[in-house]
């Protein structure tokens, strides 16, 4: 059963008709099954985070639409979708447990239930002992786990994660990936996950949507046929290596294109500047 439908979603930034207007996302269409874990992967600036924000109702598409369970999205859906951000999106003046509880308070969950659900979620991410710490007292990995707990305790069917491990070192993200696989196998949520890491994408996802360079389109969707929770053995398997290589080939040209686009822009900018100097 399909829960998220993206229908020809496009997004442009900058004033209409201006030469500075950029198309970040160009007619991206994809259907996401209930309970699957889908990864968005692609070069920087390909619009994968933009599409995630549009699904979350945090950004508006220029054209096209997103349907959640058949209803068009036009704003956040806190009862259906929880979001984990790339950077630390914790409120620095609140303790860990109060951060986790805040979303429940927004949704007017009764106080006793709030406490129970928040403690449970912290337990699930292994941070029960840090309930009364402040975010600044935690490491990067712990902060992201608090964000995950905050998203989990909302009890939504859909979880969107925007490069949640991007700021972490490779070893920490490896462990976080394993934990996430275990956690998600239990909850049965629908998850859309943006990443730059090829290995992470293959290790976690049921399907991987590969984006092209700007303007971002969905180039192909690869399926990773492997049971959750995924074990260390899968990380070391030939199957993962093979899929990683396939992704590498698919992405390589796109990443080059992105860099060339930027290089060109830089050159013409420099030329314009030197022209200005000569005058």
């Amino acid at each position, binding site marked *: 059963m399909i829960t998220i439908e993206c229908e020809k979603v496009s997004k442009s930034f900058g004033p209409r008709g201006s030469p500075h207007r950029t198309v970040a996302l160009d007619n991206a269409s994809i259907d996401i099954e209930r309970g699957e874990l889908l990864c968005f992967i692609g070069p920087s600036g390909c619009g994968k985070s933009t599409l995630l924000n549009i699904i*979350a*109702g*945090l950004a508006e598409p220029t054209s096209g639409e997103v349907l959640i369970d058949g209803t068009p999205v036009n704003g*956040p859906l*806190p*009862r259906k*979708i*929880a*979001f984990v*951000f790339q*950077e*630390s*999106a914790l*409120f620095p*003046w*609140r303790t860990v447990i109060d951060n986790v509880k*805040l*979303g429940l*308070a*927004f*949704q007017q969950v009764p106080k006793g239930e709030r406490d129970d659900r928040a403690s449970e979620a912290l337990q699930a991410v292994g941070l029960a002992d840090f309930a009364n710490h402040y975010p600044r007292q935690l490491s990067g990995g712990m902060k992201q786990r608090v964000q995950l707990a*905050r998203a989990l305790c*909302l009890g939504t069917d859909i979880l969107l994660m925007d490069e949640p491990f991007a700021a972490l070192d490779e070893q920490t993200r490896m462990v976080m990936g394993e934990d996430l696989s275990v956690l998600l196998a239990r909850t049965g949520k629908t998850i859309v996950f943006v990443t730059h890491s090829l290995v992470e994408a293959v290790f976690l996802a049921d399907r991987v949507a590969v984006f092209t360079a700007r303007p971002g389109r969905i180039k192909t969707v690869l399926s990773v046929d492997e049971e959750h929770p995924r074990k260390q053995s899968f990380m070391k398997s030939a199957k993962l290596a093979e899929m990683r290589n396939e992704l590498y080939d698919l992405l390589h040209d796109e990443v080059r294109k992105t860099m060339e686009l930027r290089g060109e822009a830089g050159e013409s900018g420099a030329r314009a500047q030197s022209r200005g100097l000569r005058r």
Partner: protein
Amino acid sequence: MIALGQRLVQVCVLVAILALWQFATTNGRINPLLLPSLPVVTTEFLGMLRTGAFWPDLRVTLYELVVAFALASTGGCLVGFLVARSGFTIRVFDPIIAGLYSVPTILMFPLYVLIFGIESGSKIALGATVAFFPVALSTISGLAYVDPILVAAARSMGASTTQMFWNVMLPAAFPAIIAGLRLGLVIAFLSILGTETLASIAGLGHEIVSFGESMETAKMFACIGFAILLALALNSTASFVEAKVRRGLE
């Protein structure tokens, strides 16, 4: 231990200044009319304290300060909040308020005396005017530069406009707002004392000037002593309230 060392040095500096004062005023090194000696000033100060002669003027100054600061903080926070509601109003009004802030408001004082009278009214009006700007500007910048990620996070969790204001905007903007309020309090105090010395019939500033004009410098210094004590009291009250509110928000 380090804190104790710091205190010790601070006390030594204070003692050194007082000793220098005493040294300069003994054996006629400095005309006692310009700088009376420490014991003479202390006697005057204690005398005023005993008779309560300082109280009517101190009360006038305090009253002016309290009213001026109440007006400035209410008005400044309110205007700041209204301006910070959209990017458009910020782009339009923030430069206007910042521009007006750079106008030397003291030049308005003669006009204020004409409008509000030579009594407390003109001092309150000027104090409130000068203190309004830092409060309004810091409220705008505090509310306008709340981390967009925090706003998005609260939105995704279903925060209503009211919940967003109390749980995200206000605590995030709080350090900036409190800094603006403190600055407003200090410059309101300074401008009230200053304008009392220009044209007034009462107040600490008025007393200081009239003692100065009648060459009663010992009494003048005693009044300056009261002004300094008042400034210290204001500062520690502000710190105390700030710490209290900060803890309340956490």
